[in-house]
């Protein structure tokens, strides 16, 4: 398993953001759904080794992130796109991605080729020399994805990656996710259930810090059949049905 968590919690002051999440994930694309404040971002930040858990255990790519040396090993094989993607406006697309390739300790000789490949892969080849300050929000999001995949990560964590992408870009992005999911564990946190339906092999639904559903998109869809749950699509109705059931 690339991701194995046991009774993971994370507390911010008096708020329990993540309240005992147990999750196992191997290669594939995992969708992480849930309403605002469900704890998705906190869970992803813990999986990205950005913040430590308050309690519980995590093993990522066979390593314990609590131990510095192992955490470093994990980070070399990790890709992460946070919800609020910052960027250095003066850097070009290539420089920004190269910067992260170097910070992920990629072999120096491989960096140039890997950066070019990552930039091409997110469709920004023609903007490679453009300064980030000149790019649109959607393009910046793609730069964020490029930096995340530049090291061909075995664990890729994406927090709202399709925010700001136009429909065509989202379709392309889903294809990219499916491709990456063939060898890596990709966890995508999103509000957009159609992304999950189109790209994910597994889906988890979080509410109030807990995982309240774990299964395939089809299984989630099935939970909405025959209910009066809100939603324009079958998967949305399944989502709403599970949430309503949990909260009732």
């Amino acid at each position, binding site marked *: 398993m690339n991701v194995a968590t046991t009774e993971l919690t994370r507390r911010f002051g008096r708020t329990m953001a993540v309240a005992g999440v147990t999750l196992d994930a191997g290669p594939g694309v995992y969708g992480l759904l849930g309403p605002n404040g469900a704890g998705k971002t906190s869970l992803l930040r813990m999986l990205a080794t950005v913040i430590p858990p308050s309690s519980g255990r995590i093993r990522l790519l066979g390593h314990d992130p609590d131990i510095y040396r192992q955490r*470093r090993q994990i*980070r*070399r094989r*990790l890709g992460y796109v946070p919800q609020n993607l910052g960027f250095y406006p*003066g*850097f070009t697309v290539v420089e920004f991605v190269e910067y992260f390739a170097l*910070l992920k*300790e990629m072999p120096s000789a491989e960096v140039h080729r890997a950066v070019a490949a990552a930039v091409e892969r997110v469709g920004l080849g023609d903007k490679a020399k453009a300064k980030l300050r000149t790019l649109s929000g959607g393009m910046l999001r793609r730069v964020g994805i490029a930096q995340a995949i530049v090291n061909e990560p075995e664990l890729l964590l994406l927090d709202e990656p399709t925010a700001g992408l136009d429909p065509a*870009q989202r379709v392309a992005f889903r294809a990219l996710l499916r491709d990456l999911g063939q060898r890596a564990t990709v966890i995508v946190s999103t509000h957009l259930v159609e992304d999950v339906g189109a790209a994910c092999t597994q889906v988890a639904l979080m509410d109030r810090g807990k995982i309240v559903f774990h299964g395939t998109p089809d299984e989630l869809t099935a939970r909405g059949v025959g209910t009066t749950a809100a939603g324009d699509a079958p998967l949305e109705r399944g989502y709403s049905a599970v949430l309503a059931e949990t909260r009732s």
Partner: protein
Amino acid sequence: MTATPVTQVPTRPARARRVPLAAAGRLLRLELRRNVMLWMLPIVAALFWLITYRPAMAYPPLWNVRAMTMQTTALAIFVPTVVGVAAWLASREARHGMTDLLSGTSRPRWARQLATWAATTCWALVAYLGCVAVLYAVTARQGAWGGPLWWPAAVGAASLPAFSALGFAAGALRPSRFTTPLVAVAAFLALELTAQFIHGDHSPWQVSPLVAGPWENGADPGVATFYPYLPDLPIVQLIFLTGLTTALLGVLGLPAGSGGRRLRRSAAALTTAGLLAAITATTLAGTGRLDPRGMIAIPALHNPADNRPVPYTPVCSDTPIPICVHPAYSVHLPTVTAALEPVLSELAGLPDAPVRINQTAATYRQESGNGVSISRAGPAMSDTPPTLHILLPIQLARPVATDVLTAELWTNTARDILYNVIGGDRREKTEAQQAVAEAILKTSTLPPGTRTAAAAQRFAALSPAARHAWLTSHVAALRAGQITLAELP
């Protein structure tokens, strides 16, 4: 975006470790390309021209004055700039919301920060060394005697990593858009204020990189010409600055998240070693004393070989009594000659008059507080052949303009030379001696209507040949105080 599989780009941590320098080099190159300091270079160059270059060029081409002026004034430009830029860059992760993204990367935060700091420092050094090169090249082309003084330039250069580290530490530990202006102004004020705490040659505050010599003397044209530039204080300042740089860079590696336990231990060791070096240097600066040759000597570091005079061939004027100056001051010789020639014409050939006037080295003595007395080293006259040793006004710890120099030569130096010939050893001059001096110098310092003033006018009215003839026969008696006013022709 495309789902087309691309060639696998495996991460190879083991190999990455084998070539850390190549990756660090690429990281540094990237930081160099996008460093804010690069954009500040034209501003820094313009300020250098305005605050350092132009005032330095107003002084005669003396390496000591140019180098010491540069050390003090250039830092006033570079320190706030480099501190501000470093603080700005150190806080950029937080300002741009990059903290999460960067926290998930494997390279230690310390290494990432060091790359940014190194790039900032590199550009600052390039700018500084470029400015120094221009100033020194122009000084050399103006025919300054001797060679460039590298110690002041070295202290200035070593200040930049230290202040860059200071700004960087402030920006990294307190990331905010307000950190930059605050820390830049604070560093400038701190630098300027610490120098104001210097009282005498034993002050530990002399460790400040602004200080190029005895602080109260400023850029002193009288030092480092007859004797070498004493490196004691610069060495202490370099130790201090290196220690400060090391300690501040170490501080960056202390917070949790900067790196692993080993790395943080190394950071703690660096901080401790840096602090110890800085404290040692400050203590050493406190043991300084004003060397008779005008520089600060640190006993623990002093090399007696630096006490030996620098050999030189004097440059002499073509006057009735030749005036010989140190070649470093040869630029002043025409002014000196023009000012003193009338007096020398009157004195040439008189019994016991000097056959040559030599510029001599000054000797310095620390007075109470910040006072320094500067006087001639050795006796005024030496025999075989009779030579008079004088200090030029420019050796009195202040660069002076040509017109001021002329006035001082006439009112002070010419009078000293004259009294050395006609005045004898007595401190109080006789009325006859005063009258003769007044007549030859063509001054009117005597109260009008007095007998002395009348005698001076009478003597001045004589032709130069008549005065010279009278002096030739009476100078011995005049010197001995045996001539009365009535006996003056």
